[in-house]
């Protein structure tokens, strides 16, 4: 199973399912449900960004929400000033990436350990939250966009087709755009992880010292993956601002950061599909909790996090994979006598093929 998870077959399977959903869902769902699915896809992109830097880069970032919020605010402010949404869309990716690069420089070049990393990213998130939260009042504005403090920014102009300011995306278009972004991010990260750069990133997670001794500057690779993670989170933030045409400081908040980490832990650290599964499951659960008053959502999320860390530390997807693997082996073992009987018949088939292989080899 482990080998399957790393193979291209699994990537192809995920992509096939993704593409089927991309074209299938708008056919079967009404617009309201489609909008719901869009937010799941937005959050999945955010989840994947952390899945990459944490699961593959070994960087535990408690502040992925900071980049998410930054992307969302950048888009909102830029689009309100510019009108056309093409440049703001790009800015919403570039600005969080630059911010991540700056922060990453302080952390990785200061050679701070994981734990400090977690605390610093948490702190930065809180700074941003406090800062943005305090910008209520008309004197806080960038260009023609009021920041709005704790009230957030309402009525953000949504995305339009590049260059045509009047051609605004419909909810269905936004679904296509968001879902395509998710698939592209997934595919891009799979390719990156399989490439040489990706291998060094994973190696630096496994043993930074050894990577350094082999002549790779691990800090550069970590900085790169952290920056990329920031860019992807920024993209998610931009799409989020488009989804509700609204953004507020709560997306910088601790609860948001906690959620992202919970998605990754629940779905499975070290996979890219796992966090998407975790994200959809937890989001669905949260919305179910929201509809009834018996349990507080913090209570349930906290309990889930504790239980998973203690009892299912590997997450749903790898654990399910193991279970399927075990079931598969048992199933293979059960008809073993039959296989033995068949074996002599199959055996003579083998040598000629091996012979043919050796003959053609020279």
């Amino acid at each position, binding site marked *: 199973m482990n080998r399957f998870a790393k193979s291209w077959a699994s990537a192809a399977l995920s992509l096939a399912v993704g593409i089927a959903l991309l074209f299938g869902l708008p056919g079967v769902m009404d617009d309201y449900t489609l909008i719901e699915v869009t937010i799941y896809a937005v959050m999945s992109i955010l989840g994947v960004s952390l899945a990459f830097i944490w699961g593959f880069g070994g960087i*535990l970032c408690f502040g992925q929400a900071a980049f998410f919020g930054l992307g969302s605010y950048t888009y909102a402010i830029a689009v309100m000033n510019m009108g056309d949404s093409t440049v703001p869309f790009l800015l919403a990716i570039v600005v969080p990436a630059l911010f991540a690069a700056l922060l990453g420089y*302080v952390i990785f*070049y*200061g*050679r*701070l350990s*994981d*734990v*400090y990393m*977690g*605390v*610093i990213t*948490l*702190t*930065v998130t*809180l*700074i941003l939250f*406090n*800062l943005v*939260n*305090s910008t209520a009042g008309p004197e806080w504005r960038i260009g023609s966009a009021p920041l709005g403090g704790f009230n957030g920014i309402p009525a953000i102009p949504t995305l339009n087709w590049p260059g045509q300011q009047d051609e605004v995306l419909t909810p269905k278009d936004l679904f296509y755009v968001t879902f395509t972004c998710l698939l592209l991010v997934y595919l891009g990260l799979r390719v990156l992880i399989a490439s040489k750069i990706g291998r060094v990133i994973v190696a630096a997670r496994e043993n930074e010292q050894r990577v350094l001794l082999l002549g790779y500057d691990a800090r550069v690779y970590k900085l790169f993956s952290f920056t990329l993670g920031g860019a992807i989170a920024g993209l998610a933030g931009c799409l989020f601002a488009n989804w509700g045409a609204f953004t507020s400081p709560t997306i910088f908040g*601790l*609860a948001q950061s*906690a959620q992202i*980490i919970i998605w990754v*832990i629940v779905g499975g650290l070290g996979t890219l599909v796992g966090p998407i599964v975790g994200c959809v499951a937890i989001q669905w659960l949260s919305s179910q909790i929201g509809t009834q008053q018996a*349990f*507080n*959502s*913090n*209570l*349930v*999320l*906290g*309990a*889930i*996090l*504790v*239980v998973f*860390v*203690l009892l299912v*530390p590997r997450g749903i997807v790898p654990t399910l994979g193991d279970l399927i693997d075990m079931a598969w082996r048992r199933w293979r073992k059960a008809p073993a006598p039959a296989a033995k009987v068949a074996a002599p018949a199959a055996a003579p088939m083998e040598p000629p093929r091996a012979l043919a292989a050796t003959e053609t080899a020279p």
Partner: protein
Amino acid sequence: MDLAFVVLIQVLYAVASLVIVSAGLAVIFGMMKVINLAHGEFMMLGAYAVIAALKLGINLWIAIFVVAPIAVGMVGVVLERLVIRRLYGRMVDTMLATWGLSLLLVGIVTSVAGNTTAGVSAPLGSFSVGAYSVSGYTLVIIAVAVALALAIRFVLTRTQLGLIARGTMQKPDMANALGISPSRVYSVTFAVGAALSGLAGGLLAPLTGVVPTMGAAFVAKAFITVIGGGPAILAGLLGASGLFGAINQLATFVTTPVLGEVALLVAAIVMLRLLPQGITGRFFKGSL
């Protein structure tokens, strides 16, 4: 002159409140290397313990100095048994689990007490310095911080308990061979740390509104202080509190409270870039 005095008191107060807020965390992180992200929620529980005690008609001072630490210390013992104990040595997992605990505690308190702000009025009134008035409770906070620092030093260096605790943290297997049960020491240390957090929450209850989510306001400051302090528990705590508290209060004085907090956190991040081991990683090496 009056202004200078008032500013001095405010700076001392900022430093003192950082010491109080971070002491519990410093004990748990410094001694056990456990990152307790539920620290803010321990404080929150302390504050609620004070409110509950006041409702039962208990004197405010007893509520703050006795009820809050004992209640939260007991919660600490239970949580250590149930969760933290299984995760010693796995720093990242501890961090995640304690974060889960923090959400869980916020959720439980919200369900029980409701998402409303409860308040305790600050006792002792205020006295005037020239044209300014200073709250008497400010002086209590400063006094408690000094007492707390002295007490931690006394316990760690002069008592059998402190000796055992320090020995166990340095070499658990050797302590075990000498007939001391490390798990009991860990349990007690965690409980003491939790009790200190509870005391901090109780002390700050009259100054801040008591809401289930109040912990988040302190946890970042407390962490940055402890980590900025570095490996020496007490010297680090005092050094970092002094530095960050002064920066915070002076920036607040010049601009706004929010920018004061931002200045504190930015200063901390810049300092960690220059001194990754914290203040005591470079200066006062080998002190407590």
